[in-house]
């Protein structure tokens, strides 16, 4: 009796929730039409390929006003659907609406002008890479319950090592050494938090400051006096045969450099590792309930060391992107907070590699979008566009992630008694 009693409790909760979401979607659609739809005319021209491309696609030309009107209508329609049907999870519809909203915005911004959509998407992927890698590094550490605020520093170290050693030994060895340096800092972090039980966040902050200092110092005392040490050959983009010829997709995914390819690879591999393999299971156990793991003969200490070092290496690789994957030259503090955004992406993605990747792509998109709009010169101040991803993160962390659980033992030092 009690059961079906709270069963219909459940139902009316659901319906209430769907009512709220539905209505807000309808409102949202309305707002979009109000802001973007009214008073725009002309067409938005999105260039999909360069004249030089083998199969050049015609430009995608959209009549601004009607397109925006349509997407606004669709969003409203989804809202209505949710209210009536009260489906199990609204996420698909909300995602779709979100997508439509962005599309509408783009069309509005481009009305009467044109820009290269492909270019923007390509930039999106490129911009997402360091963030995604930072997030992967974060996941590796936090899955074994070690908070790694030091990722920013590790990225920077990787960038520096990449530039320096790349200039001396060529980019491949440079990359390897960058990874090792990252791993080195991973080791230091592990030693500090696991062995010496330094507060995890303090240790991370210290690493950030330290790396910032030492890299800048060496830049001034080593690289300035001999510039040839700060001029590494970069990894040029590799065009994957045939695939790269596909219009749009081709140049977005298959005309990139190894960092992009490896980034995707790392995401896949680490998903497999964490959720399919025995080692992954043990790692997660250490993150959730170290004592239990210990009683089953899993060494918490070793596991944490290994994974934090692994995280460091991924960060080192991500750092190398800034130099070997971009301009081949190190500038002081050139990582510019990507490590922190990576952490946000990790939480956004709920400590899951794939989720984190998508979060990173979102940031990357916002990043490149902002540059396009600078050319299109919209009335919206670029500063506000630049804020968008950070605002989104805050909303997400406050709203969605409120109920997503991090590994249980996170932040706690493990004391082995004997």
């Amino acid at each position, binding site marked *: 009796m009690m059961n079906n009693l709270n069963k219909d409790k459940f139902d009316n909760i659901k319906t209430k929730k769907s009512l709220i979401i539905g209505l807000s979607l309808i409102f949202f659609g309305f707002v979009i039409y109000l802001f973007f739809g009214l008073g725009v005319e002309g067409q938005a021209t999105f260039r999909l390929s360069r004249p030089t491309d083998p199969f050049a696609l015609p430009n995608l030309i959209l009549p601004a006003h009607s397109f925006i009107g349509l997407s606004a209508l669709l969003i409203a329609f989804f809202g209505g659907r949710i209210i009536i049907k009260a489906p199990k999870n609204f996420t698909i519809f909300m995602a779709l609406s979100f997508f439509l909203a962005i599309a509408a915005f783009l069309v509005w911004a481009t009305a009467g002008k044109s820009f*290269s959509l492909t*270019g*923007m998407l390509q*930039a999106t992927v*490129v911009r997402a890479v360091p963030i995604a890698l930072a997030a992967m590094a974060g996941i590796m550490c936090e899955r074994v319950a070690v908070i790694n605020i030091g990722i920013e520093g590790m990225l920077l170290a990787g960038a520096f090592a990449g530039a320096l050693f790349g200039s001396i030994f060529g980019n491949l060895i440079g990359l390897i050494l960058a990874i090792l340096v990252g791993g080195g800092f991973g080791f230091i972090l592990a030693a500090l938090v696991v062995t010496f039980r330094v507060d995890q966040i303090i240790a991370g902050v210290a690493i950030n400051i330290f790396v910032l200092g030492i890299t800048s110092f060496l830049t001034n005392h080593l690289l300035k006096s001999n510039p040839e040490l700060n001029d590494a050959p970069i990894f040029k*983009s590799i065009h994957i045969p045939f695939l790269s010829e596909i219009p749009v997709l081709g140049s977005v995914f298959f005309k990139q450099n190894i960092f992009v390819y490896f980034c995707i690879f790392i995401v896949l591999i680490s998903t497999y590792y964490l959720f399919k393999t025995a080692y992954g299971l043990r790692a997660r156990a250490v993150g959730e309930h170290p004592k239990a793991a210990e009683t089953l003969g899993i060494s918490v200490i070793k596991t944490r060391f290994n994974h934090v070092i692994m995280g460091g290496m991924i960060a080192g690789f991500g750092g190398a992107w800034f130099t070997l994957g971009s*301009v081949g*030259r190190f500038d002081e503090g*050139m990582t510019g907070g990507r490590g922190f955004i990576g952490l946000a992406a990790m939480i956004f993605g709920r400590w899951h590699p794939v989720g984190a990747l998508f979060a990173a792509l979102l940031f990357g998109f916002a990043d490149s979008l902002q540059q396009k709009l600078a050319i299109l010169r919209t009335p919206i101040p670029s500063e506000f566009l630049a804020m968008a991803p950070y605002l989104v993160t805050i909303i997400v962390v406050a709203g969605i992630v409120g109920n997503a659980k991090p590994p249980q033992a996170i932040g706690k030092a493990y004391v082995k008694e004997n």
Partner: protein
Amino acid sequence: QVTDVGGVDDKSFNQTAWKGVQDAVAKHGVDSKLLESKSETDYEPHLNSMVNAGCDVIIAVGFLMGEATKNAAEANKDSNFTIIDFAYDPTVPNILGQIFATDQAAFLAGYLSAGVSKTGVVGTFGGINIPPVTGFMDGFAWGVKHYNKVKGKNVQVLGWDPDAKEGLFTNNFDSTDDGKAFAQNLYDEGADIVMPVAGPVGLGSASLADELGSDKLKIIGVDGDWTQTDPARKGVYLTSVLKKMDVTVLSVIESVKSGSYSGGITVGTLENGGVGIAPYHDLASEVSSELASEVETLRKGIISGSIVMNK
């Protein structure tokens, strides 16, 4: 010398000025001190410590240091200052402001690139929206406009609108990564020649051009001749818009030595050779002989005043 943020090895702005100092060291054996500013809060203390270090002349490199330099100069009437890219009115007795008519040189570069461009689109972007930077961009845009007028073509300039004074800015002078991204962005929009006016940021653009190949994307350097400062990628530089701070700095130092120093303003122009454009080096082949000669006549025209750039 106190540098602006960006560092003395920026292959451009600070470095060119510093070269002037080193020339002086080489020629006259004066000794030199360098303070690099990490942030704008460093300007004043740095200038002060230079004063305390008892320098004969303190060289402030950069428009952004205008305020700080003025304060320092007024607080220390008896030490000599010179600042690059800032002109005070009324002038301060113990500051020599060095400014440059870079728009004249950039005008030539603009005309040149309009002539060289295959896609009919050229681009530029700046570091921060301040006169010393936008001077370049104005000239560049005007140059292209002039080309369109005389040739009846329609070459587009992306990244700067000289009338609205709006355009693309990285809002920093140090992120080469941005340099690459912005160049990529312009390239995606069809530009095949880009002039980055943001000190070392431009190196990022150069490395993109290097990656794509100079047939797809060419770069125009600023301040110094980038084929000299960045020989590794000399293949991608169509030319550079020269702003010969090294020369002026050297002369200021000499004037101090000879006691002929006085505050005020000096202006570098095409006429007095304070500004100019670099030889075409590797990409000379891209520049047809008649285009080259047109540019030369333009130069004369500007000096003589027969050509008014902005119309």
